């Protein structure tokens, strides 16, 4: 247990040194926040403000800014692990006693924790200065949000882990990574809240793990889970995807380890 905490803590600290890149990233997030928000407002204007699937214009605007702030939960399709696999450095990692999946989970937890602490609220604050946002006042909602964010992080990681592992078979992960990135972007609610999708597409989206990475936590914060049972169902969906993807990741890892043994690295 102590090991995982140390890994996370070190990862947290390592990422705090990239200052210039941090500023550049936050700047980009904010710019795109403006662009997305204006387009969505125009959509609602054209409908005279009529809500879509229970979301009114304030909902989608708040959603957009929160997505820009918490994008790091979803918008990375592979880990540095993929590069280590490509160069063969991973063979050393596989022989270490520490579990590879847990190691990377801890490392990612540290990294994302740092980024949430430093970056997540900047776009929201900026957005709040220019637009009308609706953020909850009840602490219970914020706590539920924190739980959902933690679950989202796990789901996001598990998916990233699987994509990275494909490098064992495909060697150049650029193609799979790009494909994953677009699927994530599209179905997690990053580009546009999936609430706005036509019903058939929205149903398809909710049968993928992607909404669990971003859309669901934000729905929690917007207060869209109006009863305890709805909230439980939402958490259950996230937990289910986390379990399924983590398990798939472990299965792939075992397959990869067999492959490495057979091929001698």
């Amino acid at each position, binding site marked *: 247990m102590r090991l995982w905490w140390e890994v996370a803590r070190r990862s947290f600290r390592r990422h705090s040194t990239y200052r210039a890149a941090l500023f550049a990233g936050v700047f980009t997030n904010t710019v795109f926040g403006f662009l997305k928000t204006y387009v969505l407002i125009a*959509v609602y204007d054209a409908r005279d403000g009529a809500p879509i699937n229970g979301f009114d214009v304030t909902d989608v605007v708040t959603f957009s800014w929160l997505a820009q702030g918490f994008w790091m939960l979803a918008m990375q399709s592979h880990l540095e692990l993929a590069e280590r696999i490509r160069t063969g450095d991973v063979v050393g990692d596989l022989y270490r006693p520490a579990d590879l999946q847990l190691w990377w989970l801890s490392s990612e937890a540290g990294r994302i924790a740092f980024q949430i602490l430093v970056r997540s609220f900047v776009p929201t604050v900026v957005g709040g200065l220019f637009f009308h946002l609706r953020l909850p006042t009840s602490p219970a909602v914020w706590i539920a949000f924190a739980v959902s964010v933690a679950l989202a992080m796990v789901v996001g990681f598990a998916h990233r882990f699987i994509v990275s592992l494909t490098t064992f078979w495909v060697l150049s992960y650029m193609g799979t990574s790009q494909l994953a990135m677009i699927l994530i972007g599209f179905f997690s609610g990053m580009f546009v809240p999936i609430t706005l999708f036509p019903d058939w597409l929205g149903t398809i989206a909710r049968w993928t793990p992607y909404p669990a990475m971003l859309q669901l936590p934000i729905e929690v914060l917007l207060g869209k889970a109006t009863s305890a049972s709805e909230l439980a169902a939402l958490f259950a969906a996230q937990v289910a995807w986390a379990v399924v993807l983590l398990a798939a990741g472990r299965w792939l890892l075992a397959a990869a380890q067999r492959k490495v043994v057979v091929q001698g690295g």
Partner: protein
Amino acid sequence: MGELGRKARLYVLLVRARVRADWQYRTPFVLFTVAQFGITFLDFLLIAVIFQRTPHLEGWSLPEVAFLYGTSGVSFFIGDVFISQVERVGMYVKDGRFDSLLVRPMGTLFQLSTEEFAFRRFGKLVQSTIVLVVATASLDVAWTPGRAGMVALMLTTGAVIFSAIWVAGSAITFFAVDSIEVVNSFTYGGNYATQYPIGVFGPWLRRFITLAVPTAFVNYFPALYVLGRSDTLGLPSWSRFASPGVAVVTVLVAMTAWRVGLRHYRSTGS
């Protein structure tokens, strides 16, 4: 013409060498190009999703917005294929490779654009072209030679404007090596913004993309002429024909920025 001809020949040779080198890794390369192609269709799907919820955006119909999307995309991805690689200059400066460029008898911009030429980016360009063709065919426009010519012109000037933004932005990284992502928010942000009629944006943002980083001249203003729309923002009617002039100005700014950045590098090292 001799000097220009020789430069062009050298450009072709160097790009061919790069493509030949990349072709050795052709399986992932082909997969990647196909993935990119499919991927950018999903990108357009976002616009389709929006038009599911409303038949008009700022009074513009789906074919018209698709036209904006297509013209923006084609211009942007031409720039992406031929020029965007200069944004890697920060990497070159960091690992010292930039010095190797300075001891060769060619311009640094020229070398960056040939050395990092990426054939696989053509996938996105093809997709945008398809959207543009389909959109143009679906437009309810009285076509004249002038309008058709304007489409060809705006694609060219648009590519030039985006390319200039890329170069100017990359030049800034001579001063702040890790800031390249800021430039992306202008280039990719500019592409995204020009997929929609600029009326959707707040007045300050509109002014910014017209006067400061003039991406509105890539497609919006010329499109007003092609589509026979009146501008709802009160700009003079000659602004629809101003793209070539704007393109020239942006190129001058970009070349100056690059020269300034280069001078800074040569006086402070890396």
